[in-house]
């Protein structure tokens, strides 16, 4: 699984952090999402997929 995050699209909802805190974080200054790991381990796959599905800005893309 490979993840890309489009920070220009991100609206700082933080829903990715709630869904997968080991994969996503937020910048302190504006809450824009930050990718902690572009290739999360297999046990994070479900949470990561969920993060992508609840992202309101469709800013998270997953390549399986």
């Amino acid at each position, binding site marked *: 699984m490979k993840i890309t995050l489009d920070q220009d*699209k991100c*609206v*700082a*909802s*933080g*829903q990715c*952090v*709630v*869904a997968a805190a080991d994969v996503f974080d*937020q910048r*302190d*200054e*504006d*809450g*824009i999402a930050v990718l902690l790991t572009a290739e999360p381990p297999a046990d994070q796959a479900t949470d990561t997929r*969920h993060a992508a*599905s*609840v992202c*309101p*800005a*469709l800013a998270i893309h997953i390549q399986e």
Partner: protein
Amino acid sequence: MTSTVESAGESPAAVPRFPMTRAAGCPFDPPPTAVAQQKQAPLTRVRLWDDSTPWLVTRYAEQRALLADPRVSADINRPGYPLQVALPPGGGSASFVLMDDPEHARLRRMVTAPFAIKRVAALRPAIQGIVDELIDDMLAGPKPVDLVEAFALPVPSLVICELLGVPYADHDFFQDNSKIVIKRDAGPEQRMGAQRALLGYLDDLMGRKLADPADDLLSGLAERVRSGEMTRNEAAQMGVLLLIAGHETTANMIALGTLALLEHPAQLELLRDSDDPKLVASAVEELLRYLNIVHNGRRRVALEDIEIAGERVRAGEGLIIANDIGNRDPDAFPDPDRLDIERDARHHVAFGFGVHQCLGQPLARLELQVVYSTLYRRIPALRLAGDIERVPFKHDGNVYGVYELPVTW
């Protein structure tokens, strides 16, 4: 209203009126006409107060697709935008909620930092303190008591005042005015007056934050005014928006959510007797889905022709994206009319979707988690004082809920 529409079903000119009326005795369910529209098609037409006939987007998948579509505009001043009431002379509000990118993104990013997950999570002890204190007062006071006045409204009001840096002593003033702003049947004069009063209040407060900044959200905005990133008027508008959005919605979720749980005692018991914070979080998501207190639809207008679900939405046509019905779409939520706090409802659209999704959702979720995990445990015998038939529901409001909720224990 409902029966007129249904009996006129054979005529092609019959377009149901929107907003629609809930069925008597079903205070938590979407209006029957809306449910019928959803069964009929993902996109149907409705007739508004001004006789315009925008699309009603009824199904979950199409709602998410359109709310996230850059060819769809949230700009209230565009021709074809499905207005709830006539625009005042000179155009609509200057709130970023009713703007498109890049202006929307520029302004929204000025206030996203305080709503980041970790910043909000740090407020948990303060929110718990507010909730505990209000429950102490309730337990010490007379009963029955109106839960709205004693608890549901003060919780989010105290929290948003603390976050923004608004003196809570002024809460009567801004609660009275914001009630008028969101009341559906308030006249345009009355609504504008209330808006002006709130804007004047926030502008004055912004002046004080400019002179004497503190560690709060409004002082953060004042700093941006000083650095030239935004105008003082933009900052004051933002303050009004956050103040209104911050207390009215959550207050309704607390009171209506409590009533829904009281009417589903097995679910309430499950929540009350569990120590699992995950169940509390899941109960919050399910109640947000089930109740979806924003019942007037997210309003948009198409910028281009859009092909969706076998329909062509033409440029300039209005869209009403009815998230309350979307959250009851059986394709997205099996057995959607059942309140089930153990289901995974996290993908609901109660906060909207797309770039305009509710900014305050992390705060709302946290407040509701603290409330729902504390109130019923501390007052296990909590019950409705009187008949549900006597509870005054906000059928005329832009945010659905109850005006009063008499409870006892």
